[in-house]
């Protein structure tokens, strides 16, 4: 066990899986010679060589398709998108090929591949480079979507994603790479977290904040602030968006009777909409208040610093949402 960064946790996961299974390889822009645009693949070229760590041209659709083909013949590709914003170019391969191959082949062709990279806004990257891309992927049946928030979750979930026999979109966060946390090391054994399980990051009794990815850290900040006001908030980190841990969602709502869903993306048909739909359908009698969502503003992300701050979810907006469901003025 050691306190390492989210970036290093991912690096450990890749190294362990590549050592464990020869068919695992990493492919993407700058992953080899440059050690990765965000240094996630640092040292892997030296350790595993250029057949296992492959630099590509700027051609997302091309190398995503290459990955699909490789998976079809028995390899286990980890396809890195420098950010998931660029993967929009590759959606035809990710959705129409990868997600649908198992169904269209009548269950014959599994594609044990992982699409990974950072998603969501960083700081002043502008409208095209700040999107929360989970919605594009989670909508299609046939591809799993995972969004780890902490270093330990990043390592355990990436190992599980690589071992999964079907496609997984593994979405990291640019602002998360430097977050530090306790992570079991190789000396602690094979640390794998199963996909599809949420995690209560903070126990509470008065209100549930249901969230994922970078927003988990915002939620924890909000909870600390509410604590000073005597409100005890529970923070549920979904970790997987597909499959969704519905039981965990219902359990937290049953416990606190009120929920705020916090997400990084746009409000219209965002991830939170699905969660609210499930809560009102299956936990109706446990609700003392409507479920309230906090999301990015329904606009392309501004470049100007002050506008970007206003567009993103903030501590105050989440606190206001919690007060609303608590009927506190």
């Amino acid at each position, binding site marked *: 066990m050691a306190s390492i960064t989210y970036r290093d946790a991912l690096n450990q996961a890749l190294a362990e899986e590549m050592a464990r299974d020869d068919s695992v390889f990493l492919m993407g822009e700058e992953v080899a010679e440059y050690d990765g645009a965000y240094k996630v693949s640092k040292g892997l070229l030296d350790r595993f060589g250029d057949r296992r760590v492959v630099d590509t041209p700027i051609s997302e659709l091309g190398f995503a398709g290459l990955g699909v083909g490789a998976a079809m013949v028995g390899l286990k590709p980890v396809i890195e998108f420098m950010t998931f914003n660029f993967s929009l170019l590759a959606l035809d391969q990710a959705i129409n090929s990868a997600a649908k191959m198992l169904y269209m082949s009548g269950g014959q062709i599994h594609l044990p591949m992982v699409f990974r990279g950072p998603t969501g806004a960083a700081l002043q990257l502008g409208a095209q480079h700040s999107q929360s891309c989970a919605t594009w992927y989670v909508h299609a049946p046939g591809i799993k979507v995972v969004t780890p928030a902490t270093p330990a979750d990043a390592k355990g979930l990436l190992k599980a994603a690589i071992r999964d026999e079907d496609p997984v979109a593994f979405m990291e966060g640019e602002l998360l790479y430097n977050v530090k946390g306790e992570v079991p090391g190789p000396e602690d054994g094979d640390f794998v977290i199963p996909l599809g399980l949420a995690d209560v990051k903070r126990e509470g009794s008065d209100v549930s904040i249901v969230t994922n990815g970078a927003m988990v850290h915002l939620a924890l900040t909000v909870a600390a602030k509410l604590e000073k006001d005597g409100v005890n908030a529970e923070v549920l980190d979904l970790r997987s968006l597909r499959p969704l841990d519905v039981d965990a969602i219902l359990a937290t709502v049953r416990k606190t009777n009120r929920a705020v869903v916090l997400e990084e993306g746009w409000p219209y048909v965002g991830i939170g909409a699905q969660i609210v739909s499930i809560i009102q359908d299956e936990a109706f009698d446990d609700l003392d*208040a409507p479920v309230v969502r906090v999301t990015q503003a329904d606009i392309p992300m501004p470049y100007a610093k002050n506008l970007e701050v206003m567009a993103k979810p903030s501590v105050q907006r989440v606190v206001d949402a919690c007060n609303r469901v608590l009927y506190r003025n």
Partner: protein
Amino acid sequence: MATTVHMEALSPTMEEGQVVRWLKAEGAAVTSGEVIAEVETDKATMELVARADGKLRKIFISEGGVAPVGSVIAVIGAEGEDISALLPDGATAQAGGGGAARPAAAAEVGAPTARAAASVAVPPEAQPAPAAVAEPTVVVEEPRSDGGRVKASPLARRLAADGGIPLASIRGSGPGGRIVKRDVEQAAKEPAPLARPALPPPSDADYADVPLTQMRKTIARRLVESIGPVPHFFLTIDVDMTRVVDARKRVNALLDSRGIKVSYNDIVLKATAVALRQHPNCNSHWGGDHIRQFNRVHLGVAVAVDDGLITPIVRDAHVKGIAQIAEEVRELAGRARERKLKPDEYTGATFSVSNLGMFGIEAFTGVINPPEAGILAVGALEERAVVEAGQVVVRPRMRITMSCDHRVIDGAQGARFLETLKAILEEPLTALV
């Protein structure tokens, strides 16, 4: 063998009922004859009993919900028994939290079958489950917006149901008056209030709409049925009450040791009963194709209750002494205010008396309660200047106005009855001989 629970006709004139409170929650064991719900009818709050043993498997109407007589409102069956055949269209057999109302499917609601014809004397006993409803396609309507739908969070509904607190009695602190968890918790700490619909929260608006209670709806409907079709005319007399004032003092002195106090109205009731015996044509019901003249006098005594009025009955008033009449009126009025009258206690009067004297009303005209043929409106007893033997003197006087159904009572007949009544009141000993 699973059975359906119907909204029963708990009074002969009842057309719909409002569930005030479920005494049993979904899943609870019930035995035949056990009270499972309190239902507000057109006049009073009644108990609904289970007609079978088993578990209350499904409730289709939540507290505050209104359903027509005859509709299916719940199912009793054994644990695990398949009850799908008994469910109204559109409902599912999932276990839910305490009695959530199911959305109605499009099936027509069966016509109320238990309405007694107004033209015949009603039987004193309330009839249980009406004949027409066995089909599972009769559905329960959602609580109506005109009936005062209560806004409450799903959790608050469940907590109130579990705690046996009528939602209608809880004041909501959420947006729009929504009842939320803390309101239910608060109400649980307070003593149980009477079940009545919550008034809208005070506001600065120019008006506030007050939802109609069952009683108001009934009063509105019944009296329109009266003033409309019934050809009313009105006769007024002014009665010298000197001897009544004196008699009352003496009677109350006699009754002091028994703890009974006789009021002026009790004396008027007795005098009316005696007078009616002598004028059976006024102690009558309009029967459409006949007039029923009664030999016994059952007087309906109008009692003002919260938000309305009801007429509990003093039966055989012609043979009861005023002490007994006084006691009965007191007892019935008390229970009327608590909405605890049984149907046979407010149906079956032959004639009615209404008194607004305590409000200083000099005289007024009452609306007849069909199928009765008349009603007396008693005004205030006041000292007035009158002329006796050419002199102006001060006497206690009381004006009584009789409303008559002209199909049953003609002017002269009504006048003769009032003449008799006046004679009795001006010389009470007349009633003794």
